[in-house]
């Protein structure tokens, strides 16, 4: 039966559903009949002996029996419904019937209701995503670093994309689905997915070194001891939380591979968070120099 089935991975945004319907009608004309539709992927079966016209509806259905019966009464066959509440219907094409026979929304109000059902949800999600963008944006300002920049941009882009879709879905312009090219959308989605993955990978590559509270406590004197190592995988800003105290002045330093000091602090007591260190990739170590007992707690991330 090879060659009787076909898959398509074309991406359709919700606000381009009219274009999707057009494509389904065209596929049917060429003998490919929809089995399973969706926004990322559709599957078809070959049957050149029939021709269907398709329609899509969106929304939570209170009474599925009544819903399908209402469509069946007018010759619509329920093809399937997706998990995200899109419903696909088809009707055998009869050239003798007028075009209106293939409409499922016959007044402006009901079409607008359907569009608004999606638009409302999109707006809620867009606001949530904008909230994430703001959250990461604030953290980015506090501690500027690459993964946070990527997360902020990705969430802002996702939110913006949905707001754009929201305006198209609410637009009364009948040619609005022309305004959302599939290639453009695929590119944006690719950027978002790549951004999310890159953000996570970069985030996981960062050093997460942490001494326990008082974990570095030593009672005997210590001179120029290389205390702990950490590795930086890519050039970025890294942030040090440092808290130490001792009886006589002590020195805390961060050294690079060549033994050069990239950060140093001397005193009997010191406490600061989010000390920004701009570090190229490489191996680093903390060094402590102290002639009396001391305690230290530090985090680098």
């Amino acid at each position, binding site marked *: 039966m090879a060659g009787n089935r076909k898959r398509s991975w074309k991406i359709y945004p919700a606000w381009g559903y009219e274009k999707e319907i057009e494509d389904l009608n065209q596929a049917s004309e060429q003998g490919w009949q929809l089995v399973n539709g969706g926004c990322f992927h559709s599957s078809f079966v070959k049957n050149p002996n029939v021709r269907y016209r398709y*329609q899509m*509806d969106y929304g939570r259905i*209170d*009474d599925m029996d*009544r*819903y399908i*019966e*209402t*469509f069946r*009464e*007018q010759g*619509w066959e329920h093809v399937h419904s997706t998990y995200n509440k899109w419903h696909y*219907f088809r009707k055998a094409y009869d050239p003798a019937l007028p075009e*209106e026979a293939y*409409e*499922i*929304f*016959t*007044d402006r*109000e*009901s*079409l607008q*209701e*359907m569009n608004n059902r999606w638009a409302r949800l999109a707006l809620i999600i867009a606001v949530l995503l904008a909230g994430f963008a703001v959250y990461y944006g604030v953290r980015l300002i506090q501690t500027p670093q690459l993964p946070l920049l990527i997360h902020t941009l990705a969430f802002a882009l996702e939110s913006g994309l949905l707001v754009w879709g929201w305006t198209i879905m609410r637009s009364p312009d009948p040619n609005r689905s022309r305004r959302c090219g599939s290639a453009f959308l695929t590119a944006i989605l690719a950027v978002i997915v790549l951004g999310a993955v890159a953000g996570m990978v970069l985030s996981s590559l960062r050093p997460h070194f942490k001494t326990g509270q008082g974990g570095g406590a030593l009672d005997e004197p210590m001179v120029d001891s290389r205390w702990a190592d950490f590795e930086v995988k890519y050039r970025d800003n890294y942030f040090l939380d440092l808290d130490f105290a001792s009886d006589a002045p002590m020195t805390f330093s961060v050294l690079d591979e060549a033994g050069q000091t990239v950060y140093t602090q001397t005193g009997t007591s010191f406490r600061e968070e989010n000390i920004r260190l701009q570090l190229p990739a490489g191996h680093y170590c903390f060094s402590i120099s102290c002639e009396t007992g001391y305690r230290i707690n530090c985090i680098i991330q």
Partner: protein
Amino acid sequence: MKRSEPMSESYYYILLCLAKGANHGYGIMQMTEKLSGGDVTIGSGTMYGATGNMMKKGWIREIMSDEPGVERRRLYQLTDSGREALRAEIARLRRMLANAEEV
């Protein structure tokens, strides 16, 4: 008196088609086309939404047909408040028409 919102054409015709007795969706659709001389059609999506909304408003209710041969067929029936809403809409339309004639 609270002024009622103008009804959509589909709501109006559905109520009108039920005024003389219960009917199923397809019957309402056919009757609407006949009454309006083909000007008004009610597609399935519009029908499902309108009947659902009007059931929520309490203007119509769903009953099962007990006619022999078509048992268990879903029918819609006008309620008293639905009849009242239809009457109010007709009065509104009459008033608008009368206004047009005055001018």
